[in-house]
């Protein structure tokens, strides 16, 4: 059955191979060219200068490379869902559309074996291509260091989605879910669209739940008028105020107090803002963040969710195949 699955997906697999070679070679070449530019920056590459001749040279370096690096990250981020849509979704749906599944079902091949061999032949090459391209992109982005997207920290959406276990977990989910959607919908296009929408929705939901996945860190400032300082790389979750009893007051709930202390109609501030906030019961301000050091655990937590959903998809697919002829 492996041979049959291979023969059916041959054209796609050749395309994947071309993509792998071309993509990897392009990233190697670009990386080499970027490193020449980096060497040209000399001492400016490591300095975080805010003035002087380095500023213009660094910004011209960023002008030519930042967007490309970002694009490489974005490519690794979207590759799993593209593979899910174009390789996995039609895997079973196309056979159901053409009636060719009956060929396998009525030969001496079990449906589960048929499904698993198709999945394996699609998944293994996709995984190899993704891992290789991820490695290429990550090493390129790493080479740029703080002059590239890494400057925005690990939670920057393209950086987060293209590093660590994230791409692999996305891929496993998109492949398993895509194939299952195809078996349920019995239409390739419907399955492709469902895969795309489901992935985007899940990714957005999980992206906004980083705090829940890895736990947040609370930073407190004794001055209610000033936000506690945090590393720029951390991911913002929530901010607000604390009253004398240490209870949270959200920014929305604190609006009356804030406006009572605020300037009105261009009139100068009535005295000390900090004292005014305190008088109105806003004793401290807090900031909840996911620290950048927690990025790895967020990755693993998110990967666990995607992996569980991927694993759950397969029995659903099997059930769909056994349900109808």
């Amino acid at each position, binding site marked *: 059955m492996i041979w049959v699955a291979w023969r059916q997906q041959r054209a796609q697999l050749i395309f994947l191979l071309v993509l792998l070679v071309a993509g990897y070679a392009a990233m190697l070449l670009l990386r080499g060219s970027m490193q020449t530019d980096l060497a040209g920056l000399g001492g400016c590459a490591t300095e975080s200068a805010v003035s002087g001749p380095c500023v213009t040279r660094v910004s011209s370096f960023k002008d030519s490379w930042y967007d490309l690096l970002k694009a490489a990250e974005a490519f690794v981020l979207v590759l799993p869902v593209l593979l899910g849509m174009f390789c996995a979704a039609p895997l079973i749906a196309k056979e159901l559309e053409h009636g*060719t599944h*009956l060929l396998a079902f*009525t030969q001496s091949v079990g449906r589960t074996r048929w499904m698993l061999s198709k999945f394996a032949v699609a998944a293994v090459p996709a995984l190899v291509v993704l891992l290789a391209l991820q490695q290429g992109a990550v090493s390129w982005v790493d080479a740029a260091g703080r002059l590239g997207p890494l400057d925005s920290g690990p939670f920057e959406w393209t950086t987060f989605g293209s590093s660590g276990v994230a791409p692999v977990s996305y891929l496993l989910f998109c492949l398993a879910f895509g194939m299952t959607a195809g078996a349920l919908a019995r239409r390739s296009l419907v399955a492709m669209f469902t895969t795309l929408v489901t992935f985007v929705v899940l990714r957005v939901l999980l992206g906004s739940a980083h705090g829940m996945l890895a736990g947040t860190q609370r930073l407190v400032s004794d001055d209610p008028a000033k936000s506690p300082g945090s590393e720029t790389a951390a991911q913002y979750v929530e901010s607000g105020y604390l009253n004398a009893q240490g209870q949270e007051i959200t920014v929305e709930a604190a609006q009356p107090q804030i406006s009572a202390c605020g300037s009105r109609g261009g009139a100068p501030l009535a005295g000390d803002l900090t004292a005014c906030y305190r008088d109105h019961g806003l004793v401290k301000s807090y900031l909840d963040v996911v620290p950048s050091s927690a990025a790895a655990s967020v990755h693993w937590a998110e990967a666990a969710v995607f992996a569980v959903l991927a694993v759950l998809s397969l029995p659903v697919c099997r059930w769909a195949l056994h349900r109808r002829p």
Partner: protein
Amino acid sequence: MTKETGTGDMTMTDGQPVVLAERLGKRYRRGWALRDCSLRVPAGRMVGLVGPNGAGKSTFLGLLTGLLRPGAGRVEVCGTEPSGRHPDPRISFLSQGKPLYPQFTVEDQLRFGRSANPTWDQAHAEEFLARGHVPAGARIGTLSGGQRIWVALAVALGTRPRLVLLDEPLADLDPVARRSVLAALAQQRQRHGTTVVLSSHVLAELEEVCDHLLLFAAGRVRLAGDVRELLAGHSVLSGPRTGPIPVPARCVVDAAKTGHGTQLLVSPGPAALADPAWRHRPPTLTQLALGYLRSAHQEVAA
């Protein structure tokens, strides 16, 4: 109104029936597609599965292959209940529309059969390609309908099945191709003892080759049995347009008034007719089937 013959001495000599159905039924959301189907098909027969569109032929074949699960009753094929999970290599099925992988070459398609089956006879499969003059290197997608049937038959019969089920295999073939396909199937049956079941909504094309008939209409079996016995059990009476009919009404399967007179299909077969105004002759298979189909139609309409 089910007529069944061929369950007597025929089965005894042929041994275990290849297909045995008892009150078999299948229900979809829109209603029963097949109901109360009881029949047996002895081994080595060329079986015509006939009925109008929507008669339940494809459902019946689906139940035999195990692709569908019975909603009522039971069915045994080659002595076992068919299971969709573990298809029986002794049974081959060619579904409607003759699905093949369009991007495969003919050679690849045979290799599929080889890799998917423990019992595969490459030489036997290639015979069918040779009969249809199908080039082995051609892509399936580029073949004509007349060539595709030979590839489909090669895949279905390359496994050397004991029973082959063909759903509308002759649809979209020209008359010459139909004849040569039927000849190939007849030869397969003769040489290898394969039981061949082929469905069609056109009876005429099966008349010459089939020795066993299963007639379905509106989800029920109307007629099932050995063709010769069925023909011997019926006769066609022709007589005047008006006046009494010479047989009891319960014997009449179907009555048709033509410009010349009345034609009756009656069962049982020939008996001495007292009335000289009536003549009887044996029915053709087409007359027999049409008579039962018409009566089924009236029954449904009533």
